């Protein structure tokens, strides 16, 4: 494992597009710290500051930053397809890596990127929470911190999906187009088509299930609570998940998808021609 991490480290730390995209990702997250409070000042009646307070800030931040994971998935797609276009998967096999290790090294990289993303979101959330909350106790501050766990799974899964697209298509531009097409158009369109009650399977669509790991906070409920009581809110706003599967159900569905995706990735690499 250490060997695979070291190999990936040499590859990516010297790869300028990786540095640029990761830099963009970090800048985008950090900019959030500045931009979200600015947006708040534009809306005088409803104060968005309420969602930046502990413990609701955890749900808000994991929800609003979930699409940023697309950027990380693009990094994974680029790195994986480059191995095909540079024929470096072949070189690594010739010199002694197994085909499964080729996939394992990408999964390790994805795991580390998901950890980094989760840590960054955690840090940003704490900073926002600390600057906006009236009353801070450790209990209140960490009450919804567990939301980082589904965020991590969501981030990890999205990047694994990106890797699978790259393994199947092998071409960088086409893989990115296909991935973005599915994530942004095909999946939402399918979800909209299957609106009838008997089509509850729509909640099981991969991208939808993954997105719902970090669901939209119930803003109305948060503001309602604020109107009822000016005191800081102690209760989590996430006891009520808007629609579809409960969060634990979503976690199970996505975990199932993860197993299938990882299995497929190994199978594809086992059968892929590396020449």
């Amino acid at each position, binding site marked *: 494992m250490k*060997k695979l991490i070291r190999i990936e480290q040499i*590859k990516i730390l010297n790869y300028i597009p990786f540095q640029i995209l990761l830099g963009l990702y970090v800048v985008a997250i950090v900019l959030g710290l500045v931009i979200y409070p600015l947006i708040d000042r534009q809306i005088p009646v409803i104060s968005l500051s309420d969602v930046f307070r502990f413990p609701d800030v955890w749900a808000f931040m994991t929800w609003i930053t979930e699409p940023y994971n697309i950027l990380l998935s693009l990094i994974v797609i680029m790195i994986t397809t480059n191995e095909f276009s540079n024929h*470096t998967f072949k070189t690594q096999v010739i010199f002694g890596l197994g085909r499964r290790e080729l996939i394992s090294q990408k999964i390790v990289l994805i795991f580390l990127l998901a950890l980094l993303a989760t840590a960054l979101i955690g840090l940003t959330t704490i900073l926002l929470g600390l600057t906006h909350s009236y009353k801070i106790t450790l209990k209140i501050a960490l009450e919804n911190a567990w939301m980082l766990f589904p965020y991590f799974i969501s981030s990890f899964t999205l990047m694994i999906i990106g890797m699978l697209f790259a393994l199947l298509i092998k071409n960088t531009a086409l893989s990115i187009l296909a991935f973005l097409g599915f994530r942004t158009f095909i999946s939402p369109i399918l979800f909209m088509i299957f609106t009838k009650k008997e089509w509850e399977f729509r909640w099981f669509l991969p991208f939808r299930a993954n997105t719902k790991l970090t669901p939209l906070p119930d803003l109305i409920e948060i503001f309602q609570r604020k109107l009822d009581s000016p005191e800081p809110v102690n209760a989590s706003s996430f006891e009520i998940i808007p629609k579809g599967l409960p969060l634990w159900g979503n976690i199970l569905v996505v975990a199932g998808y993860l197993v299938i995706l990882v299995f497929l990735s190994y199978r594809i690499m086992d059968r892929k021609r590396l020449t």
Partner: protein
Amino acid sequence: MTILEIRDLSKSYRSVKAVKKLTLSIEQGQAYGLLGPNGSGKTTTLSILTGILRQDTGAYSWFGDAPTPRQRTKIGSLIETPHFYPYLNLEKNLKIICKIKEMGFEDIDRVLRETKLDDRRKSRFKTLSLGMKQRLGIAAALLGDPDVLVLDEPTNGLDPEGIAEVRETILLQVEKGITLILASHILSEVEKICSHVAILKKGDLLASGSVKDILTEEEVVEFSCSENPKLRKLLEPSEIVSELREENGLLVAALKPGKSIEDLNRFAFDKGFVISHLASRKKSLEAQFLELVKDQTP
């Protein structure tokens, strides 16, 4: 000790049979050439042996064991053109290979020196000329002093100076006693470097054995005397010639191994024939190879 054992190895690309039931055995310390024209199955065979491709049927074993990725860390390979990370410099590309082989970075200096690339160690791979890329491929193959060197057309695309340099590097390894498997369509390359050869054509093994046995340069002699038909009758069953024919009034004979033009002259003189014309025509290896490849098509 048998380093590589190949049994009935076959591989097809749809309707094209690239390798047909290849059986071969390579012993430690042999410099084995896989010789054949383009499309004969050399690269496919080496790609299977280095884990890039999977065979359809048949089996092979390295060092007496079924193939595993870990075995390949003891084999230095260059299959077709070398492929490395274009944005990384030579040193970092070799560091990746060192990591794969689970060895330290100390050997990088040596292989870069041996392939005369030490002054370009900080250059990115994409900035190298074709010859330099090929040399880097050899440098990577030499990392960690492997037990076996597998090289597929290592002089492809090189200028004459580059070819000489690469051959010199390979010969140095052969002299050190490394086991070499070299695929080439250049006969002289195999002849200069290898001790053994397997000749392939369209996936079939036409011949295999020591270079001496398979590709000995035959001496062909043309001669004549006043009684050519009589001399021919005497020579044909003799121990001196292996092949005899008549061309434009001259007798043309291929001498058996170990026999010289003097032996032929003495034989004729002893039998009472005075040879009036005697000249040597060496039959080139190239001609023999082409003949073999042409005639033995199954």
